[in-house]
């Protein structure tokens, strides 16, 4: 086998460009996380709109099948029962959270960043995406209102779970749901990076058991709890889950290796 030797003599290059580096490692991670601009900013909106179109199409099918027009209780019921836009959006955000850690962390290490800067930058990225999604959903809700519920009396983003038409509650709800989705996704990816598939599976099983055990304990008091239930409980729960997910990400990534 012949050795590969340079076929041309070395020659001097011009000075390397040195002005591109980000002034802050956290800012560099933030820009890395959003370098896929369409996937970061447009895809959540596309997923939301596709979900809405899907539901509206189903409602139109029922309309033609039953002959009951806009404003009828049947169509409203079908619209609520087939509202897939928000679940689809949440699912996408969980995936986004997983990817923002699971495959972006190895790349960030390869490019040269510290784990703490990556964790902080990624959490800030989750926050800004959640804020963007909340604003986008509010804008789509505005269109829904202006069009009289997609010209069919369908207020798909005005249900009780999304604030019952109150724009402030809608924004807060979507913001917290998005944060929870990305935080949980990121936490599982961080655990996977730290301990492998078994650790992630064990974390999932532990979480499932925890939820099951909590349900067993609380089921006896369910009627009392239902009577005393306040919406802000959900908000507090979302904040707690988001904080726990963020803490898991920071702790797991601090010692994570790429092997």
């Amino acid at each position, binding site marked *: *086998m*012949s050795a590969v030797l340079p076929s041309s003599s*070395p020659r001097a*290059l011009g000075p*390397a*460009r040195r002005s*591109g580096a980000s002034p802050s490692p956290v800012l*560099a991670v933030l820009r890395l996380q959003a370098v896929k601009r369409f996937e970061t900013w447009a895809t959540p909106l596309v997923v939301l709109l596709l979900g809405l179109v899907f539901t509206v199409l189903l409602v139109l099918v029922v309309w033609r099948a039953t002959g009951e027009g806009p404003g009828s209780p049947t169509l409203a019921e079908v619209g609520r029962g087939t509202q897939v836009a928000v679940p689809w959006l949440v699912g996408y955000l969980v995936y986004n959270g997983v990817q923002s850690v699971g495959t972006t962390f190895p790349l960030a290490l390869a*490019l040269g960043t*510290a784990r703490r800067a990556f964790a902080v930058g990624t959490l800030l990225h989750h926050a800004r995406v959640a804020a963007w999604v909340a604003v986008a959903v509010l804008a789509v809700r505005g269109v829904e209102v202006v069009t009289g519920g997609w010209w069919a009396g369908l207020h798909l983003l005005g249900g009780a779970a999304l604030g019952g038409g109150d724009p402030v509650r809608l924004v807060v709800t979507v913001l917290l749901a998005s944060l929870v989705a990305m935080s949980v996704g990121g936490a599982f990816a961080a655990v996977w990076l730290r301990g492998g598939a078994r650790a992630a599976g064990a974390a999932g099983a532990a979480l499932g058991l925890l939820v099951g055990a909590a349900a067993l304990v609380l089921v006896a008091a369910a009627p009392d709890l239902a009577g005393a239930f306040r919406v802000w409980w959900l908000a507090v729960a979302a904040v707690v889950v988001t904080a726990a997910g963020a803490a898991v990400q920071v702790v797991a990534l601090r010692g994570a290796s790429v092997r």
Partner: protein
Amino acid sequence: MTTTDPAVSVRGVGRRLGGVQALQDVSFDLPAGAVCGLLGRNGAGKTTLMAVVAGHDRPDAGEVAVHGERPFENPAAAGLVSMVRDDQRYPDDFHLAHLLRVGPLFHAGWDAQLAEEVVDVFRIPAKPQLRKLSRGQSSAVGILVGLASRAPVTVLDEPTLGLDAPSRQAFADLLVRDLAARPRTVLVATHLADELEGLLDRVLVLDGGRLVRDAALEDLQGSASVVLGPVEAVERATADVGVLASRRVGGFLERVVEEPGGSARAAEDPALQVRRAGLQELVAALGAGPGPAATPRPDRLTEVSR
């Protein structure tokens, strides 16, 4: 830090992965500006060692320093090392354009012009996702980051894996030219020791997680010979010298013997062929261990010259 400080200092490093001792008591220094080959068989511990040097992983034992900084989770060391693994993971829908956009964010010395040149030379396609590139194209992406980042310590993990012959030549040309313009320390792992020999000035050989050779290339080049001939004649001529490896084919025996002195008696026997061992043969011999007919000298097999 003075100019005599090593660019990379590894002291007594050990790393256990699962049930395997991937690295064991590894120690060496790399002087600034050295181009060092990291050689060894599959599973020898090369990638683990590179990951430890790059701060992608941390050792269970020992210490690592890159220009005086601990590489694992140390912001001061983050930009000092560049390493793209041969099985590097990329996010979904991540394309070449994305990489070219983010590279400069992490390395102050990133040379966008050189990056574009590497893209052209290796014909790295822009359209496919990086995770879906062919083996050779993925290697070219690693070369791109390694060269364009201009990190003070550049770690190249199997940079020529899957590359065709013209691309391997182009890699050598680019590396030599860029190092002449921007001298820096390079640690390059490869299975093609003979092909890259002309680029190296130091060699580390790992076997079973242990460092079995740490030497300047010129010292290593004369450190072993191959003796080939009839079994009895070879056994007689190499009976009391250090044998690194033996291979018997029919009535013939080939032995890699340590120099100086290993081939002295064989050279006087007209029935025997004696030639200098190539780097690849030496690495294979160090990794293979002595054959059944050999006269092993374990103390020398595991010796590390410093």
